[in-house]
């Protein structure tokens, strides 16, 4: 008997034009690790919430959900199915870590002595002892999400459902979180249903992958078969790990590789020719420097340590510059200092050739520099996207009749026309990002600063962002972005810089930058390391494979 069985489930939201879920059949076996993926808006969240009856959305529904062979409505123990949502911040209910851990057990009326033992056990398993008595507010994003997981696990669920839990986390915290899930599955035999778009890390540990599209199940296969099962031109192809993509594009007959190691073995097996290595692309730049920093120092308060320690940087016109670096290194602070939100206490900053301090009032932000913060929600203050966009034009003193036209043009450019009359908070992460970008672009900037623009985006949205940045570049805009996403940087940047210890250490074109790193580099580069120098993106490695006439 399957732990969870879904039979012919259809669902439609009130006022929905079409079914959000369409005839879904699904079986989750006991002890299975199932990964649910698909482009955003394909119905993943709706399906997961229907499986957890306490969170089921209101709407029209048909079909059956069985849990341990009995209809779902007979399940009265809220702890039997654990649910972790996307946003680490808003799931935390109480102010202390220990209280958060105990919260679910308190609700179930468990006596104090039992709670004490179970909470202690969980805190030890998840390595929470060190911050057990802290306030929840002092935790990092990764710790918060781990706490949310532990607070669910303390209720001893049989099935754990997670709705894109790593979207808001940086890559290191995300990898930690996923390896904790793997540990739960392997060591406790816990059944896990995980919606996730970071397939690079989850495919190797998943038992089955369920791919959804437009509210129905497109396919449900083991990870090694998923590569072959996808149709050509399927946008999900770009979400697959590099090794799977190489294998698929080459049409090999052997087993599909999933990890970097298997990818390397796969290439070596098929006789790569060193001569196929791509030449290093030449680096050219415009003469005009639009952003220049020399020896900039910054700290938040007199007593606190320096965040920027003599940072220097020059970005030229029409350049896309990516700043990479570890978490909490101060990359965001660097953007804030360049955007004039924080003031450096020492050093020179020039924007468009003019010292930063010479911009008075809002002059810096008028047709000059725009900054998009990490959380796109912070950009919106009105009830509709249209009102938000129109506000910025009002401030720029554009006559009323021109505003409509301008909004129409930018909406078309970013593909958000159908979102204009929605509430910004009702949009998905990727949609919010596009609308926020539209808002800052309306101020007609020459320089665009982006903080983690790929956070929470699926593969399709990332590709649109990439395309947009290239277009902006041809429009003469300089883009400086901070990111954790090495793949995105390798494919998009003209130059990349590593931010470490308060300084930008190296600034090189991506091929050179990644080829000289051995840990901090793309998966494609790690696969091709030692075979082809300068092949850093999946496309470049693929081109090398084809040039070596593999298969």
């Amino acid at each position, binding site marked *: 008997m399957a732990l969870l069985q879904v039979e012919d489930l259809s669902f439609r939201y009130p006022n929905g034009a079409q079914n959000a879920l369409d005839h879904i059949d699904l079986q989750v076996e006991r002890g299975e690790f199932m990964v649910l993926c698909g482009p955003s808006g394909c119905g993943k969240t709706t399906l997961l919430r229907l499986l957890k009856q*306490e969170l089921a959305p209101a709407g029209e529904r048909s079909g059956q959900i069985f849990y341990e062979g009995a209809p779902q409505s007979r399940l009265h123990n809220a702890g039997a199915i654990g649910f972790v949502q996307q946003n680490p911040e808003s799931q*935390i209910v109480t*102010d202390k870590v*220990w*209280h958060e851990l105990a919260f679910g*057990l*308190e609700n179930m*009326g468990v006596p104090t002595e039992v709670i004490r033992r179970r909470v202690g056990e969980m805190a030890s398993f998840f390595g929470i002892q060190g911050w057990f008595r802290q306030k929840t507010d002092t935790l990092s994003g990764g710790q918060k999400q781990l706490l949310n997981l532990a607070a669910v696990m303390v209720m001893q669920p049989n099935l754990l459902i997670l709705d894109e839990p790593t979207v808001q986390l940086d890559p290191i915290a995300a990898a930690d979180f996923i390896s904790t899930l793997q540990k739960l599955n392997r060591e406790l035999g816990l059944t896990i249903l995980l919606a996730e778009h970071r397939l690079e890390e989850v495919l190797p540990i998943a038992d089955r992958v369920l791919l959804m599209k437009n509210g129905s199940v497109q396919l449900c296969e083991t990870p090694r078969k998923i590569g072959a099962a996808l149709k050509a031109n399927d946008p999900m192809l770009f979400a697959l790990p590099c090794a799977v993509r190489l294998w698929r594009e080459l049409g090999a007959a052997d087993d599909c590789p999933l990890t970097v190691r298997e990818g390397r073995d796969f290439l070596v097996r098929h006789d790569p020719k060193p001569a196929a290595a791509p030449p290093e692309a030449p680096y050219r730049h415009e003469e005009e420097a639009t952003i220049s920093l020399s020896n900039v120092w910054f700290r938040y308060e007199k007593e606190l340590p320096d965040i920027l320690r003599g940072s220097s940087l020059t970005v030229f016109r029409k350049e896309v510059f990516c700043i990479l670096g570890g978490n909490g290194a101060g990359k965001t602070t660097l953007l804030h200092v360049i955007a004039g939100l924080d003031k450096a206490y020492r050093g020179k900053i020039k924007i468009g050739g003019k010292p930063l301090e010479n911009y008075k009032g809002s002059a810096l932000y008028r047709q000059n520099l725009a900054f998009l913060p990490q959380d796109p929600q912070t950009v919106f203050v009105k009830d509709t996207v249209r009102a938000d966009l129109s506000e910025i034009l009002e*401030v720029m003193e554009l006559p009323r009749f021109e505003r409509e036209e301008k909004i129409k043009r930018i909406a078309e450019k970013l593909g958000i026309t159908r979102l204009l009359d929605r509430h910004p*908070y009702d949009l998905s992460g990727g949609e919010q990002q596009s609308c926020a970008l539209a808002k800052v672009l309306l101020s007609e900037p020459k320089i665009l600063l982006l903080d983690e623009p790929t956070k929470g985006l699926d593969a399709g949205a990332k590709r649109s962002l990439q395309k947009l940045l290239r277009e902006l570049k041809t429009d003469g805009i300089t883009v400086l972005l901070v990111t954790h996403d090495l793949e995105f940087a390798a494919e998009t940047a003209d130059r990349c810089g590593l931010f470490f210890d308060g300084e930008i250490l190296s600034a090189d074109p991506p091929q050179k930058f990644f080829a000289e790193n051995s840990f901090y580099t793309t998966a494609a580069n790690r696969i091709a390391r030692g075979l082809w120098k300068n092949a850093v993106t999946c496309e470049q490695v693929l081109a090398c494979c084809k040039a070596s006439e593999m298969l």
Partner: protein
Amino acid sequence: MDRRSGKLKAFGSYHPTVLMIYFLSILLIAAFLSNPVLQTEALLGGILFCATLQRRGDGLRDLGFYLPLFLMVAVTNPIFSHNGVTPLFFLNGNPVTLEAVFYGIALAVTVIGVLLWCKCYSRIMTEDKFLYLFGRAAPKLSLTLSMALRFIPVFLRQSRRVSRAQKAMGLYAGKSIPDRVKNRLRVMTAMISWSLEHAMETSASMKARGYGNKGRTNFSLFRFRASDGALLAVLLLLLAVSAVGAAVGVTAFSYYPKVSVIPLSPDALTVYAAFGILSLLPSIIEGKEAVVWRFYRSRI
């Protein structure tokens, strides 16, 4: 454990119920009894306990605050109160009496004593202890408080972020007053939508973990140990002796119209001893623990 000093906060680690009873009895006795011996004992106990809780460098600053306050209270009373029968001298035609001077000093002792004890109270009875005691009486309210304490910092951080994001778009970023007011209003409206959104997700997380079931229990990290029982017994005994003694009047003392003689009967001496130990109790426990800690540390 106080990480900064590396020393155990011995008294503070007792059960909140015991601590609360202790502070209430000390504060009540110190505030309402007018016997110079008892008043002085309360002040000394307060000073000593405060000193053990003190971080380095706080002492001088405190002295700068309490000493002038002491003098002010002590001097103000004889200037404005002309009760008493023994005039010392005349000020603007009004007598300054010996009784009023004594009473002023006694009042100052009481005020400073109570203030010091309040200071110790706020150091020891931290928010979580208070919430725990409160939670026993009103569990729903205490959960609400805990949620509020969680929400406030998140709210403040988000509104700061929104405000900066708006500034970086050059929207009403000027320094003029209309711009500032407009900006505040815009951020506030955004924050209302944000709060609703946040609350929806939080309530989903609560429902998913079974909130709303009948028979909710209230968990806390505090346990009532044998040592808590022992301290409570000692404390109640000392309290009973002091309170009964004071109630039957063995320590009766008055400043007006003439300063009376300090009662020194065996009964009165017993009350002085009991209250003396009571007010020194925290300092004794801290002192003992410091010695024990030094001994253990020597073996690390």
